[in-house]
């Protein structure tokens, strides 16, 4: 068993040679390409992450811009609508005023017309009534005018008159 702890120097030499050759060859053929691949991937990852971050920042900026534009547009629309509403209000007031005024004018002129018409009608009526009454009186008078009655009447009247004014008594 002591052969276990009796190193064979020749094998040590082989080990050293073998291992050093391996280090040289593997460094060139294996580890360098591996490291290159890893670094390339890390670079690609970093690049991708940076690109993604840039894209995100861009998107955020665009969104902020859009938001600002939207807010501005909203404000503008609100302003325009307020303006339009105010203008409409003014217009309405104006129209109503005008309508009221013209209505007043129409009412006034109608009243005046009516007054005039009424006055004319009244005048007409008066004339007609007067005429009619004259005619009627004429007719009545024509009918009642007979001699006996008239003389009775006149004597009666005279008598009365004499009674009231004795000074005017013609005879005794």
């Amino acid at each position, binding site marked *: *068993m002591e052969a276990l702890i009796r190193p064979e120097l*020749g094998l*040590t030499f082989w*080990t050293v040679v073998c291992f050093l050759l391996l*280090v040289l060859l593997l460094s060139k053929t*294996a580890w360098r390409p*591996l490291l290159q691949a890893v670094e390339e991937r890390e670079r690609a990852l970093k690049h991708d992450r940076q690109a993604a971050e840039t894209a995100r920042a861009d998107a955020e900026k665009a969104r902020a811009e859009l938001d600002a534009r939207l807010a501005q547009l909203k404000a503008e629309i609100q302003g325009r609508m307020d303006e339009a509403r105010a203008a409409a209000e003014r217009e309405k007031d104006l129209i109503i005023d005008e309508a009221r005024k013209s209505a007043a004018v129409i009412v006034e002129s109608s009243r005046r017309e009516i007054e005039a018409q009424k006055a004319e009608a009244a005048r007409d009526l008066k004339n007609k009534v007067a005429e009619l009454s004259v005619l009627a009186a004429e007719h009545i008078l024509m009918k009642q005018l007979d001699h006996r009655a008239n003389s009775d009447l006149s004597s009666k009247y005279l008598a009365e008159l004499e009674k009231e004014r004795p000074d005017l008594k013609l005879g005794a």
Partner: protein
Amino acid sequence: MGLKEIIEHHVLDHIWSRLAFGPLSLPISKHLLMMGIASLILLVVFPLLIRSRSAALAPFRAMVEVIFLFIRDEIVLPNLGPKGAPYMGYFATLFFFILVVNLIGLVPYGATATGNLAVTGGLALISFIVINFTGMKEQGVLGYFAHLVPKGVPVWLYPILFPIEVLGLFIKAVALCIRLFANMLGGHIVILSFISFIFIFGSLGAAVGFAVAPVSVLLVLFMMCLELFVAFLQAYIFVFLTAIFTGMAMHPH
């Protein structure tokens, strides 16, 4: 064949032949073959896996990637600081090499090369060199040794502490080496012992052996799961401790 021979057969290296290379005699052995297989897997599978764009392989690619990034972000960079990036090749290779060698030891006909003191010694030697090299590179050779003893220590303690710290440098490396070796070896010996229970009890009577077999197999199954976990854990610990020691050497405060 006794238990000792069985265990030795399974955990020891089998040297098939030797090559003379200067003063060294280089063995051609089973553990070398296992390391070769592990290297081949790492050299062929990993580059193909990492470069493949196929969706079916994506989970495996992701697994390698996750482990690599874990080593980078949780082990190397916190300990070594931003200057640790150039050492990632070393730490990642270290982790996957130890892991694959550990895992090959769990495959039938496989042997655990990391259960060999010479192999873990080799890895610890490289760790030792890396730790001290980065420390000297970062602080200068003189600065490195000057900062070896922690700040705020009374001057008269320096003659005692300095040798201890120098010794500590070697002890750290040796501890790395022995920790991995013992962990990988221990599990295998336990598994072999559980399997051997069947035959030990079987020698009392065939019926006893058959009765013990299910228990043994269940225990071995449990140990295999534990070994699988330990394979990852020890690879992680080796890398983690090397990173901590390197960080301490680079930044003495």
